[in-house]
Each structure stands twice: as structure tokens, then as C-alpha cells.
């Protein structure tokens, strides 16, 4: 069936809830309103107020309560309305969600999936465009997943919900309705911790995820016209990271670049570049470049394009690397 990413997410949530009555959705406006992006549309009507809970406006309590639910065997899928508002829940996520398995020697696990829209590019209000995935990737115990298409969203969300580990599931707002894709009706899982080579090429490896995948694709098409064949790796799971796929690709292409929306400093690009340096140094024909958001606060909508990496910035870096 042809559907957008947000529809794929909605369908997955419905199917997972039908499959497993331990799954509870809670968050702000997820009930009657169906979520501000309609990701939970129709679920309140289908599953009732005990399973689709409109909570008070309190992010720490949303995640804290989700943790408490897991103590009694439930598998909540809380929604934080925007990633920019997840910080009040940081203590719950970092101090508890991520480490309860370890700090109870496996007695208590926290199999919850925290969904939140993230990323720039939709001309949103302040605090609605952040891309702070790296903050979570440094926390042992967390799994961070980002889909880049409706098909991936369905398979990755199902796998996240079924995972025994806590997952931060970041949904790129720019891609929610950007394209429609044929998505199978039957539930399926895409493996977590696995990157996907979404375009093959022999000259240069681009590692990206989420809303940067379409950007990388556009750049790759333009580069192909100039005779440069770009390989694109969609990381899909940011942590734990599938380093093998990255390293194998870079060993073939000899050139690597990371494209992400988050600020450059201490972004995941640094981690990826370090990995390539550790494991593929002698295959490199040039430095690992990073095309990223700048180390500034995401600008207001009129100037947002200065922040957000587009195909032109990627192409510029491609030329720099090819000429190195």
C-alpha cells in the first residue's frame, strides 16, 4: 500500500498494539487528537484510554511513568512531542532507562521505545528543529534508531518495539510526508544495529541517516553526471553502530564523508571519522570530511537553509575530496 512515513508509523503502532496487549502509548496529545503529526491517529478510538493515554504536559513523568510500567511487565511506547522538549526527561532516560538492566544485573529491563519527531527543514518554531542524537549515543545501554523512508520506518519501528533494549526512535519531521512509498501491509522487521547500503558507488562513501539520505541521494545523482560514483550508507541504527559496513565500504572506495544535521563538534561524524581512522586509515585517499549543521543554534525559519546541509554543500565537499 502506498503511504507516507507518518502513515507507516501509525500503521505499525496499530499492528503492534493488536499483536501485544502489553504495549501502551502515552504522551501529550496522543489520544483524542491522534498526535500533533497524527502518528497515533485512530489509536485512541481503537484501543481505548487505558492503552492510549493523554498525559499531563510533563516529559519527565511521561518517561518516568513508562519506566514504572515496565516494572510490571508492560512495554510502553511513549511519545515526546518534539525532540526539543525531551530534555526534562533526560534524567529519566540517562539515569534509569539506559542503565536499569545493568544496575539490576538483568532483573529489570526497560523495553520501551521512545518516539520523537526531530530535525530541521520544516520551517518550524524555535526548539522544534533540533537534532541532538549524539547526546543519546554516548549513553551506554541506549539504542538510537532513525528511519529514512516509509518502508524503513515500518520495519525499524516494529523491531524497536519488539526489542528488549530501550530504543530512542527519532522520526525526521521533514520526511513524515515527503514521499509515499509502497509499504507491505503485513508486519515485518528490519534488523536493528544494521546499516544499509542504499546506493552503490566505487569512488566515495557517504554515511548519513534520516532526512540527510534524500540530500545525499540528490548530491549523488548530480555527482554521477560528473562521473563520480557515490556509495551511500544509511546508518539506520546510530548506536550501537554498524561500523563493519562503514569500514568495508570505505576500504572499497578510499574516500569517506559524513553528512548530518547535528552540529559538527562532537557530532556522530566525529565518531565515524575516528572509526575509519582506526580501521581503514591506509585505504584513505584523503581526509574524512564532515558536512553538518554548524555549531550554532538552529536559526529561525527564514534563515534555516544556512544551517541545514543541502545537496550543494555535499557536492562541494565531494569535489574537495575528489580533488584532494
Amino acid at each position: 500500500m502506498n503511504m507516507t512515513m507518518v502513515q507507516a508509523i501509525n500503521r505499525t503502532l496499530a499492528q503492534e498494539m493488536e499483536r501485544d496487549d502489553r504495549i501502551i502509548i502515552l504522551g501529550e496529545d496522543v489520544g483524542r487528537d491522534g498526535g500533533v503529526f497524527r502518528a497515533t491517529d485512530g489509536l485512541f478510538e481503537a484501543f481505548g484510554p487505558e492503552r492510549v493515554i493523554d498525559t499531563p504536559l510533563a516529559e519527565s513523568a511521561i518517561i518516568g511513568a513508562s519506566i514504572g510500567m515496565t516494572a510490571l511487565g508492560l512495554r510502553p511506547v511513549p511519545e515526546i512531542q518534539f525532540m526539543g522538549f525531551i530534555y526534562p526527561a533526560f534524567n529519566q532516560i540517562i539515569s534509569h532507562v539506559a542503565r536499569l538492566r545493568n544496575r539490576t544485573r538483568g532483573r529489570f529491563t526497560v523495553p520501551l521505545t521512545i518516539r520523537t519527531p526531530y530535525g530541521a527543514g520544516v520551517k518550524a518554531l524555535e526548539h522544534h528543529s533540533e537534532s541532538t542524537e549524539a547526546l543519546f549515543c554516548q549513553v551506554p545501554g541506549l539504542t538510537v534508531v532513525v528511519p529514512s523512508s516509509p518502508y524503513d520506518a515500518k520495519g525499524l519501528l516494529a523491531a524497536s518495539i519488539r526489542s528488549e533494549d530501550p530504543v530512542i526512535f527519532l522520526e525526521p519531521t521533514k520526511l513524515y510526508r515527503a514521499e509515499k512509498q509502497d509499504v507491505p501491509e503485513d508486519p515485518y522487521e528490519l534488523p536493528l544495529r544494521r546499516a544499509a547500503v542504499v546506493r552503490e558507488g566505487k569512488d566515495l562513501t557517504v554515511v548519513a541517516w534520516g532526512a540527510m539520505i534524500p540530500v545525499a541521494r540528490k548530491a549523488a545523482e548530480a555527482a554521477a553526471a560528473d562521473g563520480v560514483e557515490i556509495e551511500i550508507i544509511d546508518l539506520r541504527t546510530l548506536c550501537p553502530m554498524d561500523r563493519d559496513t562503514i569500514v568495508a565500504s570505505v576500504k572499497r572506495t578510499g574516500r569517506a564523508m559524513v553528512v548530518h544535521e547535528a552540529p559538527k563538534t562532537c557530532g556522530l561524524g566525529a565518531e565515524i571519522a575516528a572509526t575509519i581512522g582506526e580501521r581503514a586509515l591506509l585505504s584513505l585517499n584523503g581526509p574524512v570530511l564532515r558536512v553538518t549543521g554548524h555549531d550554532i543554534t538552529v536559526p529561525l525559519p527564514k534563515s534555516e537553509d544556512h544551517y541545514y546541509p543541502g545537496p550543494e554543500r555535499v557536492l562541494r565537499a565531494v569535489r574537495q575530496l575528489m580533488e584532494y
Partner: protein
Amino acid sequence: MIERFDPLKGERLQILDEKGSARAGLDPGLSDPELRAMYERMVLTRTVDAKALKLQRQGRFGTYASNLGHEACQVGLASAMTKGDWLFPYFRDLGLYLTLGYPLADHYHFWMGNEAGLRTPDSLNIYPVAIPVGSQIPQSVGAGLAARYRKLPIAVVATFGDGATSEGDFHEGLNMAGVFRTPNVFFCVNNQFAISVPRAKQTAAATIAQKAAAYGFPGVQVDGNDILAVHAAAREALDNARNGKGPTLIEAYTYRMGDHTTSDDSGRYRTKEEVREWERRDPLLRLRLHLEKKGLWDAKLEKELQDRSTELVEKAVAEAEARPPATVEDLFAYTYAEMPPDLAAQLEDHKAFLGEAAR
């Protein structure tokens, strides 16, 4: 009973006075064996605590949060809980743990810094200690929601100190509990200090209990050195939770007789006179006087109990000290359900390093 003591009118529930006499009409009517068992738990708690402080001074224990003076709060609450109930504790809950049946050696493991002490026994509905202050409160509300969803007739207890009531999680948790009328009991051990900061600097409200009014459910202040008052209020609040009558906030008004932890020196912020004044209200003494009045206790029984407690404690300490620290594999094993290759590589590398260092 809870409704009869309105914190907004400055009323505090006390059943046992400082001489150990119970107020008629309020006595919860515990049997003689129950009363004796409570006292025994309190004495054991104090013995375990005193030993911990001694071990810390000898370098056999890590930083430790002393428990002195909190025995009535803890044993009074725990003895009102039933098997299915859940506890989301804070870090000064020794008597609760012991009353609920927590193995003594496990308690020592934790404070000795052995990972083995992290896992609460599978048979006990005790969530791990929340060290980030107040963070257990919203968790307990989620457990309450889950209990209702699963139609379990249980109550969920969260314990915390007076300092925690200034945290956002206190507000977020109690607010949510009020909205959903969850089966929760919020038990605040108001021991007058958050490390050095006195209760008056945590809130301008006259009591902590009265904050419940703003969340739309009952709150009661009880004398936290009076185990009968604690027990009676807890029992009623737990019953209400289990019977769909919603949450309750209990403020147990007590005093932290010891330092905050072994890293603290309370002489910097309070006077000896103040501490001595509270010694008079010692919760153990009060219950002992009550037992003696009822003819249930004497010096011989006291001596036997002290000896028995000491013996239990020495055995547990020996067991805890004999247990080796966690292996390197164990430290890595519980980060994810299945160890990612990166982490496995780090583990192997660390083991290789240890092998080289040993050569």
C-alpha cells in the same frame, strides 16, 4: 483517620506519646507478636546501620548514608505493606528493606561497592534505589497505572526525603497520580535536612503533607518517630490505593540523627543541642516503653535481641566480604540484551590488557 488530621490546620497524627502511651481511639490494634516483631526489626535496622558506619571508618565500606532515627518511618510503613505491593525506594530505606525481607548480605554488597548488591531479589517487588533525587516518584506512578491496567489489587509506594519535594519529578509525579487517581502512596520522610539545607528552605509551605491538596488527593502529616502513627496512616493509605480510592501523600515528620552520609559533617550546620533534643524522641525508645507498659518487654528480652541482631549482622558482613567483586565479563554483560560487537571488542581488548599487565 487520615481525613481527620488536616495538615492545613497544623494537625499531625500521633498515637504514641514520648512516654510510650497510646492514645485511645487511635491505636491501630496490632497484636502482641506484631508489636514485638516491629521492635525487633527496628533494633536490627539500627544494628545493621551502626555496623555499616563502623565498617566505613575502617575502610571496609564505601560512602554510606546513615539511617539513625528513621526506623519508625521505615518499619511502620513496611509492616503495613502486603506481598504484592511495590516499593520504589530512595537511598535511606534500610528498615523498609529488612522488614520486607531483603537479604542483609545484599544490602552490604551494595554499599561495599559490589555489583552483586545491585540486583534486588526476584521474590521482592522492590525497584532499585533511586540515587537521582525524586526520580523514582514518576516511576512509581507508572507502576500504579500498570497495576490498574493489569487489574492487580496492589498499592505502589514511593519513598523520598523532604529535599525531593523540591524536585520537578515530585510535582510531575504527584500531579499525574492525581489526574489518573493511581494506586500510589507517596511517603515523604521529612527528616528536616537535605544534606545541610533545612526543611524551611525547601518550601515556604507550613507542611509537606498539605501539598497533596493541590494535587487533588489527601495528605497527612504523621509523627515519624511514632511507629504506630506511621503504621496506621500507611495502612489506611495502602488500603485506599488498593481499593481504587486513589493516592495519598504521607509526610513522616522525623529527624536525621546522623550525618547525611559518611562524607558529611553535620556539625557545620546544626547544633548538638538540637540533636540531643531529638534523642529524647528516639523512635526505638518510644516503642520499647510502650512494649514495657504492656508487659511485652524486659531487659532480658532486650539483651537477647541485641545479641541476636549482632550475630545476624556479623554473619552477613562476613558473607558480603567473602564475595569477590564482579568479573570483567559481568561488568559488560548487562549493558544490552545482546552484547554489540563493539562492546565485545572492548571487553576482549581489556582482557588482553589485563593479561599483558599480569605478565
